[in-house]
């Protein structure tokens, strides 16, 4: 018998084991952590640093002042958000029904169809954008067919403008919406819909009362990914916008390539970064709201 004050056995050794275990786990994540710090954190800090200096090398807010004073920058920011929002909205309209159908198919058939959705990922964004040029130009495939079918008389200007940029962006972004949405739809237990029907809900009613609310987390995740990727779009507006569509990334490129103004470019980058952060923060608040109403239970 050990007395009430006798030392319990192995206390220190067990504590040491726990510590070793935690250190081992930490050391496993060390390479990835180092990589993130070197290629993410350092450049971002550098970006902030650069944006805080004027052309003559003195510490100043002149780069940010310019963003506020020159109306062109406001227009660029506005256009960026406009295109991103529109692209996200159209992706939702196109992607939601697609993801819904995929989620209702047998997993085997759905897998095959998913290949179709993912196929665009196998080619470079540049190739895909050029393909749209071929399709959408004045005497491209779309215009030729449209006219020969009598849908419209004169060639439409589908490219080198806002609509061309939008079409290209939607094509690139759609899989990013469909993937998380499909995942969250697959996770919805078919019994929920059966229960809704059993309780008297028509298929339409069951969809809006049960399926749609339960698919919202996936929809939010997908929309967020699309919106944020759109905010940083460069290639598509550059090639399909015909110089008429200038998004933030294009403005940054111009600042550097034409004016060698690193300070101005950095300031734009910082603003875009902060705005993206703001979008994420708002989305997180919305997601938490969703949690209050109950996420996925069993």
């Amino acid at each position, binding site marked *: 018998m050990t007395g009430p004050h006798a030392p319990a056995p192995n206390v220190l050794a067990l504590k040491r084991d726990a510590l070793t275990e935690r250190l081992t786990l930490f050391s496993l994540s060390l390479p990835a952590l180092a990589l993130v710090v070197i290629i993410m954190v350092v450049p971002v800090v550098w970006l902030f640093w650069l944006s805080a200096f004027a052309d003559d090398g003195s510490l100043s807010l002149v780069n940010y002042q310019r963003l506020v004073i020159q109306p062109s920058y406001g227009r660029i920011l506005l256009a960026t958000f406009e295109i991103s929002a529109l692209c996200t909205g159209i992706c939702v309209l196109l992607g939601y029904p697609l993801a819904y159908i995929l989620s209702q198919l047998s997993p085997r058939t759905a897998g095959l169809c998913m290949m179709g959705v993912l196929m665009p990922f196998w080619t470079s964004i540049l190739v895909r954008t050029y393909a749209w040029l071929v399709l959408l130009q004045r005497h491209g495939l779309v215009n030729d067919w449209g006219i020969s079918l009598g849908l419209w008389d004169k060639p439409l200007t589908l490219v080198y403008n806002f609509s061309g940029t939008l079409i290209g962006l939607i094509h690139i972004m759609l899989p990013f919406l469909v993937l998380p949405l499909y995942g969250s739809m697959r996770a919805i237990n078919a019994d929920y819909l059966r*229960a809704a029907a059993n309780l008297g*809900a028509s298929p339409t009613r069951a969809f809006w009362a049960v399926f749609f609310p339960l698919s919202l987390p996936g929809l939010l995740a997908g929309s967020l990914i699309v919106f944020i990727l759109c905010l940083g779009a460069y290639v598509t507006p550059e090639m399909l916008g015909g110089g008429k569509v200038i998004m933030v990334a294009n403005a940054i490129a111009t600042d550097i390539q034409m004016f060698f103004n690193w300070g101005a470019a950095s300031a734009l980058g910082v603003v875009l970064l902060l705005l993206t952060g703001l979008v994420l923060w708002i989305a997180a608040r919305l997601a938490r709201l969703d949690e209050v109403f*109950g996420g996925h239970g069993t």
Partner: protein
Amino acid sequence: MPRDASLPIAIRQIAKSYGPVRALDNVDLDISSGEFLTLLGPSGSGKTTLLMVLAGFTRPDQGSLKFGDTEVIRTAPHKRDVGMVFQSYALFPHMDVAANIAFPLKLRGVPKAETAARVARALEMVQLAGYGDRRIAALSGGQRQRVALARAIVFEPRILLMDEPLSALDKQLREHMQIELRRLHEALGITTVYVTHDQREALTMSDRIAVINHGRVMQLGTPRQIYERPANRFVAEFIGESTFLPVQPSAAGYSYAGQALHLPPDMPAGRHHLLMLRPERLRLLAGETPERCNVLAGTVQHLIYQGDSVLVQVALADGTPVAVRAAATSLALAALPAPGAAVRLALAPEDTALLADDDA
């Protein structure tokens, strides 16, 4: 209640195949108004498929299904007006308890004030009064089960379907809920079809049991009929423990090992091949052999103490192992024979059940 509380169900020639597998093989079944009928069978027997046909989620290949006088085989699930408790409960996670229960009432255009009153009453009935604003994720398994039940009965359906509703609960809670479901059924008088693979649950709760295997009804009867007079070997083996001894037809009836058997007066007609022995229906004989009793002789092999009883494993003269359940009172324990001792087992004629060997 403004309308009849319950409806009878008539199932005729319902069949459903999945490729070469016959999930339902021409099922005929009549369920009376207000009855608690259990579909009992092993997994893959077709019992759940039959329930899904009743609910309208599975479209059969053929057959007729009537609720009362109305043919419903082609009626969409949302127009059938039957309550159902799912095995997964299927409570909507994005609604709180009250909203879940109010859902069927909202669909039926019940005014708000009445909805609130009926939700409160349904919660009371399942002993969850005051739980209306809880989130589903915050409920225990037993509470979810009750909410699912409240949601299934709140719109006063005349038929209630339950698909293994207690299978996710632990043993103690399950047994408690069995009694409570039975009580609720008696209070509501609603025609209930209950699916389970748990024979004890079926025996405890049902007015009648339909034992299902290979998509067919193997036997339909009261728990006592099913247990004491199984129609065939499958039913006898699926429900309760049993040993089978081969019997031969003789002049007076049947005999085992040359010994004529005393048979019960209600012995079903037909050709029989097997004598069914249930451990708790056998008695260890001490002293005189009672009159008109079937007696088997054997040697004790093992005694297994099981708390509420003692299982005595006996080898008959030809080596066939037979189990006898003996009471575990101190007196009986003291009187138990030791392993190796010769014993005689008595079986009352009323407990003597003969059955056919084939599964048909």
